[in-house]
């Protein structure tokens, strides 16, 4: 007998008390969405910036390897999106457009269409996500309502830079993935 049959058969043999699948209420919390989002990103060790602050930071940082898929900053691109993600090894900055953000935890939803290559937001040294300030949702519940069951080959709630506290619980930013996250609220 295949293991599939064996496992499903063993479960079906059991007489299990019927249960009811609970409905999820539409939880929400008060407060200014942009303020809460900004605070969440900063506690996740990212940084929310205005367009002009971002431009100032970018122009003084001297990066030469930049991929921008953002429709707001196409001119900042110095490299085309490669075909092979392995070519991202020395990428310094990736600039992407986020679909929407969640105020309660700073999570930003991205899908294949925004990412170009799935490895991009992880492999790059620094990550910039551009987000429309009118596209902020209250909690994850509203976020999942928004994406519903629409197809996303790869979807990602990204909330901050790569971080770890595995050495004596000391927080270090920049573990294996991006060393920083900047969110430009437009």
């Amino acid at each position, binding site marked *: 007998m295949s293991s599939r049959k064996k496992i499903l058969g063993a479960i*079906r043999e059991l007489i299990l008390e019927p249960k009811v699948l609970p409905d999820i209420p539409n939880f929400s919390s008060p407060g200014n969405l942009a303020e809460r989002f900004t605070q969440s990103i900063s506690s996740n060790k990212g940084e929310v910036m205005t367009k002009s602050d971002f431009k100032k930071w970018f122009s003084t940082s001297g990066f030469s390897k930049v991929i921008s898929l953002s429709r707001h900053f196409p001119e900042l691109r110095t490299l085309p999106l490669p075909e092979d993600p392995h070519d991202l090894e020395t990428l310094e900055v990736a600039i992407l457009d986020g679909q929407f953000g969640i105020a309660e*935890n700073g999570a930003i939803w991205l899908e294949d269409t925004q990412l170009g290559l799935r490895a991009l937001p992880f492999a790059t040294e620094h990550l910039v996500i551009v987000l429309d300030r009118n596209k902020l949702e209250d909690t994850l*519940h509203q976020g*999942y309502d928004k994406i519903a069951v629409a197809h996303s080959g790869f979807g990602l*709630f990204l909330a901050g830079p790569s971080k770890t506290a595995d050495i004596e619980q000391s927080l270090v930013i920049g*573990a294996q993935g991006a060393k920083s996250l900047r969110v430009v609220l437009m």
Partner: protein
Amino acid sequence: MTHPENATEFLKDSQKSKWHDETLWFVRDKRDKVSKGIPEWEQLRELASGIKDYVLANLADYLEEFERNAIKNGIIVHWAADSEEHNRLVLEILQQQNCKAVVKSKSILTEECHLNPYLEKHGVEVVDTDLGERIVQFLNQPPSHIVLPAIHLKKREISELFHEKLHTEKGNEDPAYLTQAARIHLREKFFGAKVAITGVNFGIAETGEFVVCTNEGNADMGVHLAQVHIACMGIEKILPRRKDLGVFLRLLARSATGQPITNYNSHFRNPSPGKEIHIILVDNGRTAQLAREKFRNSLKCIRCGACMNTCPIYRRSGGFSYNSTVPGPIGSILSPGLDLKKHSSLPFASTLCGSCTDVCPVKINIHEQLYEWRQEVTKTHGEFAKGLSMKLANGIFKSPLAYKISGSMMRNALKSLPNSLIYHPLNIWGKNRNLPDPPKESFQQWYQKNRS
């Protein structure tokens, strides 16, 4: 070795065990603070518990729905009845790809199946890519905590280890410096690996996708660079609807480390063009646990580790004292189901204070199940020493005269008996426990003097 024997070993380094205790309590405290910021926290726990209960009551249907949708998405689905089959399936995929080195992100299931030694025996190099897991892998140790794998180590030990393995400066204990060295080492592995293995936090039946959560981004670094992604998933990880993730992702990281969400929450629905995703659905004792009515709901666990951080025994005895892949309170109710003989001391590694149950985001009645497992353990092999004293006590409590006489005898005896007799090896209750000073008079005598 039993839990008390292992715990004795851990407690020998009193400074380190004190640090361990305080650090985990600090994490527990962070969980408290962040959860209090969510007014609907208790409602979320109730919902999560209800959703998981519903899944377990309809598990076969949901597994089939998940499989059907995953296949529709172009994912290759395998089923493994036990750890051997799981390991064999992984090896077969690796062999098909002619892969000799694989990167793996945190997966408690693959630890449970002892995948690493199996693959290494067959000539495959396995690199654990979570920083804490890489550290313990270098030391040939298992993780001591399911969320904080290297919590039993101090930075001095990690500095010495990295000096040896990664040639970092001798004596440099700066966590940022050591993490950077690991980053360079691990990124080299990511960019070189053809196959990446991950665990699964949640599988969604209605969409056939699965979700993996990390803070380091190591799971994604691995799978998006590799040609083939193997996701190992326990059959209990299913959720019915995508929107259920709203409940579970709000609870998971807050319960685990006191952060509002993990920084990377990846939803895998179909492979990138030209690449492959495999899911291995693993039973390995889960259907047996499902059949045990009293212990069924231990399968609701989402592996947040909150019960470990809060447990007074875990904090003071360390993860290794449990000698079980999942340690702590939840491990002590899961592991006896896998091997009652080996794990017979675990249900006793608890004060039954109930703190684990109080913090569990899916409301597993952990301390009640610990108590139930104790009954199972004593049914199969009772403890002679404790059994004898219980029988003695039973006789004494039955007769008021015997109670009166033995009380005054004990008060006098404890004063005059040498410690070697009171803490005799046969008295297992005397181990690591000190008797209080015996009172001068009995309660009855005190009452007659003061209240009558």
